[in-house]
């Protein structure tokens, strides 16, 4: 639970037991996390959150098709997971259709997941510092994964030794 306090009493550090608070020396009130204060930044006036919210819905719909299709092909049809090998992947990525499919799935899934985690961090990380660092970590991991995956899809060499 949040323990951020306001108007801390002057004598709060005195170890006098429970009787140390009085009419002139009330206990600090427990202020809810991130209450709005004068230092709270002003409104941003952008549509970022709107687009983020829309993106989650639209990418979600697309991902249902992409991911279920992916799972079906990889794990169920035509011998199931046992057929998946280097040759199988090389064969699929010879076709631009599957390249686009996998690329789309990579980007949408990563951005969808990252945006979801961003809202989770916004909702639950109470301190500004914790929020900043968690989001930095998240964005770094997302950019790294997306770039690496894209690089692999476009530079994939089936004749690699």
């Amino acid at each position, binding site marked *: 639970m949040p323990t951020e306090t*306001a108007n801390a009493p002057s004598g709060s550090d005195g170890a006098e037991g429970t009787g140390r*608070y009085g009419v002139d020396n*009330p*206990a600090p*009130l427990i202020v809810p996390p991130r209450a*709005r204060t004068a230092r709270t930044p002003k*409104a941003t006036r952008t549509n970022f*959150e709107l687009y983020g919210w829309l993106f989650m819905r639209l990418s979600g719909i697309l991902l249902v098709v992409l991911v279920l299709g992916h799972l079906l092909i990889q794990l169920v049809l035509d011998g199931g997971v046992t057929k998946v090998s280097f040759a199988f992947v090389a064969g699929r990525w010879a076709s631009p259709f599957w390249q686009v499919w996998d690329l789309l799935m990579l980007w949408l899934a990563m951005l969808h997941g990252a945006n979801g985690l961003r809202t989770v961090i916004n*909702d639950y990380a109470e301190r500004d510092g914790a929020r900043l660092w968690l989001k930095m970590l998240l964005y770094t991991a997302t950019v790294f994964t997306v770039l690496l995956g894209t690089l692999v899809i476009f530079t994939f060499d089936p004749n690699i030794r």
Partner: protein
Amino acid sequence: MSTAVIDTSDQSAAGSEPAASHLVTVTFRIRRFNPEVSAESAWEDFTLDIDPKDRVLDALHRIKWEQDGTLTFRRSCAHGICGSDAMRINGRNRLACKTLVKDITAIKDGKGAKPILVEAIKGLTVLKDLVVDMEPFFQAYRDVMPFLVTSGNEPTRERLQSAEDRERFDDTTKCILCAACTSSCPVFWNDGQYFGPAAIVNAHRFIFDSRDEAGEQRLEILNDKDGVWRCRTTFNCTDACPRGIEVTKAIQEVKRALITRRF
């Protein structure tokens, strides 16, 4: 009549028994906080013989008047209109003046099966016992401009509106600003900068009013990062609303208006 004296005493004893038998013994477990005594809040039990058809507010009154005068809570009209006495009763936000004892506790053999838990609403600073600082709540309310904004000359008569136009925002006119919805919202618990359901409901009331001309402005305010997009659609607000407003639906309508720019 020869045994009148004995009879009366017998009868009064017997007579008081059925008269009192409709009363049940219920324990109210109230979360007390007094910053002038301790920095910690603590649960305190009060046992009452009370009519099960009485309201929780009646019980609080009796505790304050008969047992402990220091018990502090807000109430004004005591009839579900002013919205002063929203509190968390048995873990749910309700108005103490609209909650009957029999509806929230199982009664067996003239006793309440479990104590009734009463605490202050969450997400706002507790000042004393059941009284919270409502200022952040009202600040969010003021931020959405909850008043009619028009331009041009003032008409010489009422601003008329069709029944259908009125119907559009009828639900959200019922808000009494009790804060039951906002203080039941998990996003608001964790981040007091979120406008909260009540402010959005009151923005909805004017955004969808055909006579009002500041809908764009209000939508812009709610388009902020702490506006409607922080709603996670958990429906806590709809469940908590003592007026039965479909709060989550109103929030979704504001979201839709922001995307389509039609309202």
